[in-house]
C-alpha cells in the first residue's frame, strides 16, 4: 500500500517538460556568451541568404557582362552601383556569386558533417561496445587515417576518384571521421559500466538497443561540439581543395574555386581575391564562435575556463 502513496505524491515528470527545462538551461548558458550569440545570428543570416539566393542576388552568378570586366567595387572610382562588389575577370557580378556560394559552403558543411558524424558514431559504438579485436582493428585503422595530414589525404583521394565537389566532400568526410570514432568510443567505454546500462541489459535489451537507445543519448555533448568543429573544418578544407583546383570545378561559384580563378589578378584587382576569402572567414568564424558557446553550455567540466 505504501507504494501507491509514494507514486501519488511524486509528481510524474513528463519527458517533454524535462526537455523544455534542459533547453532552457542550455540557452541560459549559451546566451551568456555574447560571441556565441553573435555567431548564431551571422549563421542564421547566412542560411537565409543561401535559401533565398535567387531572390536576393542582383544578377545571375554565371552571366558574363563582357563590357564590365574587372569593375572595382561601387564605392571606388570607376565602380558601378549595379555591381556592388565589382566584377571578376570575365565580367560576372562578384556579390551574386558570393550569395550563391553560401549555398555551396553550407551544403558542404551539412553533407560532410552528417557523413562523418553518422559513420563515426556507428564505428565508434561498435568499437567501444564490443572491445577486443574488433576495437583493436578499428582503432588501428583510425590511427592510420590520422597519420596523414588531412588535406594531403583528401588531395590524394580526389586524385584517385577524380576532381569534383562530391569526391572532395567524401574525401574530407573520411579524414574527419576518426575524431568522431575516438570520441564515441571513449564515451561508450565510460558509460558502458554504469548501473543504468547494466539494469537495461538485465531487463533484456539487445546490443543494438543498448548501443543506440541506452548509451548513445548520454554521449551526445562532446559529439555536438566536435560536429560544429567539423562543420567549419569541412568548409575550410573544401575551399582549400577548390583553391588547389581539386574541389568544385569552374564555373561553380564556390568560394575557394573563385579564389583559384582570381589568383593571377591579385596585384591588379584586390577585390576579386578579398571578398571570397572574407566570406569564407566570416562563415567559419561564426561557426567557431557558436562552437565555443556550445562547448561552454554543454560541457560542465570546461565551463567558465
Amino acid at each position, binding site marked *: 500500500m505504501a507504494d501507491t502513496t509514494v507514486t501519488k505524491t511524486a509528481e510524474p515528470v513528463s519527458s517533454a517538460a524535462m526537455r523544455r527545462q534542459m533547453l532552457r538551461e542550455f540557452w541560459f548558458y549559451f546566451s551568456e556568451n555574447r*560571441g556565441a550569440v553573435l555567431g548564431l545570428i551571422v549563421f542564421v543570416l547566412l542560411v537565409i541568404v543561401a535559401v533565398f539566393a535567387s531572390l536576393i542576388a542582383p544578377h545571375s552568378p554565371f552571366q558574363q557582362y563582357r563590357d564590365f570586366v574587372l569593375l572595382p567595387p561601387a564605392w571606388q572610382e570607376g565602380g558601378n552601383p549595379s555591381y556592388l562588389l565589382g566584377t571578376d575577370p570575365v565580367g560576372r557580378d562578384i556579390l551574386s556569386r558570393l550569395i550563391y556560394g553560401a549555398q555551396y559552403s553550407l551544403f558542404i558543411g551539412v553533407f560532410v558533417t552528417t557523413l562523418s558524424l553518422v559513420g563515426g558514431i556507428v564505428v565508434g559504438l561498435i568499437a567501444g561496445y564490443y572491445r577486443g579485436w574488433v576495437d583493436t582493428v578499428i582503432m*588501428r*585503422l583510425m*590511427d*592510420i587515417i590520422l*597519420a*596523414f*595530414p*588531412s*588535406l*594531403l589525404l583528401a*588531395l*590524394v583521394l580526389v*586524385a*584517385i576518384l577524380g576532381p569534383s565537389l562530391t569526391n572532395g566532400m567524401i574525401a574530407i568526410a573520411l579524414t574527419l571521421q576518426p575524431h568522431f570514432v575516438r570520441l564515441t568510443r571513449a564515451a561508450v567505454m565510460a558509460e558502458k559500466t554504469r548501473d543504468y546500462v547494466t539494469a537495461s541489459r538485465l531487463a533484456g535489451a539487445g546490443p543494438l538497443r543498448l548501443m543506440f537507445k541506452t548509451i548513445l543519448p548520454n554521449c551526445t555533448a562532446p559529439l555536438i561540439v566536435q560536429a560544429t568543429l567539423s562543420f*567549419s573544418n569541412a568548409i*575550410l578544407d573544401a*575551399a*582549400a581543395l577548390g*583553391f*588547389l*583546383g*581539386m574541389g568544385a570545378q569552374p564555373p561553380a561559384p564556390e568560394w*575557394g574555386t573563385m*579564389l583559384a580563378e582570381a*589568383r593571377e589578378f*591579385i*596585384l591588379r584587382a*584586390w577585390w576579386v*581575391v*578579398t571578398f*571570397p*576569402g572574407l566570406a*569564407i*572567414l566570416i562563415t*567559419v*568564424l561564426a561557426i*567557431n*564562435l557558436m562552437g*565555443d558557446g556550445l562547448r561552454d553550455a554543454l560541457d560542465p567540466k570546461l565551463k567558465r*575556463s
Partner: protein
Amino acid sequence: MFGFLLRRLAVLIPTFIGVSIIAFSFIRLLPGDPVELLSGERVMSPERHAIISHDLGFDRPIVVQYFDYLGGVMTGDFGTSIVSKKPILDQFWSLFPATVELSFCAIILAIALGIPAGMIAAIKRGSIFDQGLMGIALVGYSMPIFWWGLLLIILFSGTLQWFPVSGRISLMFFFKPVTGFMLIDSLMSGQKGAFASALSHLALPSIVLATIPLAVIARQTRSAMLEVLSEDYVRTARAKGLSPFRVVGIHALRNAMIPVITTIGLQIGVMLAGAILTETIFSWPGIGKWMVDSVFRRDYAVIQGGLLLIAAIIMIVNLIVDLLYGLINPRIRH
C-alpha cells in the same frame, strides 16, 4: 621510461605497416592500368607492356609484390618519379630541408608569440586585453590560410613592396647548397646581402604557416594557465609572498606547459598540411608543393612515395612528442 618507449613502438609498427599497405594499394585502386600509370607510357605494344610489367613486378602474386615493395622501402628504395625519372627518395631529401626551414621558423614564431599572449590573457582574465587577444586568436584559428597568404602578398609585396612574392632567395645570389637550409647556406656563402634576402623571402610564408598554430597555442596556453592558477599550490606560493612574476613565470608555467607541449606536437601534423597550401601560394620548393605538383602531373609514383614518407615523418614526430611528454609528466608513463 624504456617500457614506455616499447609500448609506443608496439602501436607504431602496425600503424606504419597499415600506412604502407595504403600507399601500396593506392596505385592499384586508380582507374586504369597500373603498369601504364607507373611507367608513364600511354600506348605500348603487348611485348613492351609485358617487359615493363615484369620489371615493375606486376606479374607476381600481390602478396609477393607488397613484400617486395616493403623491402624496397626499408632499404630506401621508394621507386622513381615518372616525370623526372629520378629516385623519389633523392628528390625528397633535396626538398625536405626547405619545408623544415619554413615549418621551423613558423613554429618558433607561433610559440614565441602564442605562449606569452596566452599567459597575459590568463593573468588579465576578463579584461579588454584578454577579450581582444582571444578574439584575434579565434579569427586566426578560423583563417583560410591560402587567402591570408594572398592578402599579405597584395599588401606587403604589391602595395608596400617590403617582401618578395615567391621563392627562397633572390636570383642575384647563387651558391651550392650545403645544408639545404637557405638561412645557414646564405651565411656560409659569405655573400653580402644573401642572408637578408633569404630572411625576407622567409618572412611572409612563415607568418602564414604560423597563423593557425599561433592561435591554437595561445588559446591552449590561456586555458591551461587559468586551470593552474586556481590550484592550491599557486595560492600557497602567493601567500608566501613570492613576487607575482615568480608565481606565474616559474610555479604556474611549468605545470601549465604540459598540455601546451602536446598541442605544439599535434600542430606539426597540421603544419605539414598547411605547408601544402603555403608552399603552393609562395612557390616555396618544399615537399608540400612537390606533392601538389605531382597530383597535377599525375606522377603517381611520387604521390605513392611521398604519402608514405610524410606519414612516416608525422608518426616519428608524434613518437618524439609522446616521449618528451613522458619525460615532463612522469604520471603518463604508466
